[in-house]
């Protein structure tokens, strides 16, 4: 097992850098494609001048807005203009708030990030121990229980689970607040809901990885040598099985950030997900457009991070 500081050498660093550059280029290309797709989709649907003008607008108001915002220009021209701005962090102004999109998002992204990190932590704390135990004792009661938890997690709709938790723990028991983001207690229920849905995948992967590693020669050797079983388990087996889990967790975090829309709107958490949902309802295209791009970027960067981690930790992966 040659990982960690021992494996640190110049050749590997150079290889990693090349890998990094290549993947960064790919990430940029992916983000560009996503932005092109979402831009075309949003503009297929017609012009947003009505949404901008508000409920009591007259025909003249709408016409004026159409020219003012440049909706009368050809779509490719509008896309290039948008993209040029996006490079400098200028995503235009929100139609609804009439303030820079970037300010709105940077106001609300931290809440979503907090929720996402809390969710993934919860998922790891629940899934990894269960997965390990399930692997040590396959087909035992705990294995079955772990399996049950994971299948339930896949089968229960998020919003349904959220409502049930609110009814029981917030309204009836009064243990936690119903909604808002004022204190850490406000994050308890949403964290459980968001984290729970990442649990099945992580648990299955931990279990599979552990099973595989436990069958591997060096573990058998270590055991045959009479090493402390707990030490074998944690120092060797878990460490190796953890590599793909870390990758999956990063990817799941990416999904979570893009998928917290339902949870944020139920728990009135003022994050980027809720902003996305409300912006969709308000036909506030610049915000929706920027958020789609942002979530894609986060996802791409997290997978890149996961790949880098894997490449660095696992000598079996050829980084060239």
């Amino acid at each position, binding site marked *: 097992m040659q990982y960690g500081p021992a494996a640190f050498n110049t050749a590997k660093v150079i290889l990693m850098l090349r890998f990094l550059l290549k993947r960064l280029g*790919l990430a940029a290309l992916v983000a560009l494609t996503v932005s092109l797709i979402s831009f075309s989709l949003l503009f297929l649907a017609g012009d947003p001048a009505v949404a901008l003008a508000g409920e009591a607008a007259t025909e003249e108001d709408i016409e004026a807005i159409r020219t003012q915002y440049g909706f009368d220009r050809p779509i490719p021209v509008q896309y290039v203009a948008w993209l040029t701005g996006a490079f400098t962090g200028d995503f235009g102004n929100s139609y609804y708030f009439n303030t820079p999109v970037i300010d709105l998002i940077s106001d609300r992204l931290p809440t979503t990030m907090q929720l996402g990190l809390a969710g993934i932590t919860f998922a790891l704390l629940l899934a990894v121990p269960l997965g390990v135990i399930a692997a040590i004792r396959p087909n035992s009661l705990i294995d079955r229980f772990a399996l049950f938890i994971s299948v339930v997690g*896949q089968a229960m*709709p998020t919003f349904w689970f959220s409502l049930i938790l609110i009814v029981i723990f917030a309204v009836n028991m009064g243990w936690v607040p119903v909604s808002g983001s004022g204190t850490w207690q406000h994050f308890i229920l949403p964290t459980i809901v968001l984290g729970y849905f990442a649990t099945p995948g992580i648990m299955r992967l931990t279990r599979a990885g552990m099973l595989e590693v436990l069958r591997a020669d060096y573990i058998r050797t270590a055991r045959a040598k009479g090493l402390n079983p707990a030490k074998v388990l944690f120092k060797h087996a878990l460490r190796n099985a953890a590599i793909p889990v870390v990758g999956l967790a990063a990817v799941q975090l990416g999904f979570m950030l893009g998928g917290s829309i*339902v949870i944020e709107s139920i728990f009135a958490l003022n994050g980027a997900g809720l902003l996305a949902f409300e912006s969709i309802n308000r036909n506030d295209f610049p915000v929706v457009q920027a958020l789609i791009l942002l979530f894609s970027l986060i996802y791409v960067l997290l997978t890149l991070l996961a790949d880098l981690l894997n490449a660095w930790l696992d000598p079996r992966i050829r980084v060239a």
Partner: protein
Amino acid sequence: MTIIDSNEITTAPSPAQQMRRRALRHWGFLIGGGVLGLIILMAVLAPFFAPHDPYAQDLSQRFLRPVFLGGSWEHPLGTDHLGRDYLSRLLFGAQISLTIGFVTALISGVIGTTLGVAAGYFGGRVDTIVMFIITVRLSMPVVLVALAVVALFGGSLTTVVLVLGFLLWDQFAVVMRTSTQQIRNQDYVTSAQALGCTTTRIILTEVMPNILNNLIVIITLEMAHAIILEAALSFLGLGVQPPLPSWGLMIAEGKDMLFFEPFLITIPGIALFVLIFAINLLGDGVRDVTAPENRN
């Protein structure tokens, strides 16, 4: 989801016999398949079973409770906010939810399998391009994009199925690509190539049958995924159009009375849960039964 350990089978019957034997001893497969079969039967026979017209409203008969909460057998599962029979809507709702699952899986299956098999079979530049498309697709936030599109084009069964179908093909592509790569260099494929068979023919007669088991597993997973996503869209007010009784829409319509008549979301919620549970059990079962070595 294996309950038995297939390594114990020591006789050497044909692969088909082996599979059948494994299937018959696999509880997850049996239960999942059985329950799903039952739900499909319910959906198909809904017109015969349903005690009432699922669309017939009676505003004077609203929020009647189910029989087990003190209601009458006239409406065994009670009535909804427009006085429509809940049992009838649940039965017909099975049709809608299953249709969403099947059709979405069909669309995404065709897209994903085509891409995946092409990438796996041809490799090289084709593979690079397909991998790029997959990465692009994976990086798009599904719920957000689906919501935006449905909000713009209006929710309807067709829009929802199309949107989900065009979004949920990634797993098909990923798995079909890997599976095809694994068998591309097998003897029977290379010999077919040597015999001068056309590529289409090789893919259809040699490749497809050998990746079918994996395909079935992904189909079940994506069916479940689509049904859940439709429910989420409906919950956010952007799913199928009323009066179609999809289970997701029933939950969405019942949620207003969450604190007063919880049966309205509990009943379709449990139905949805059981359906997804069964589909997932079946999917795991198919994997265990057809390829026990891939179990994880």
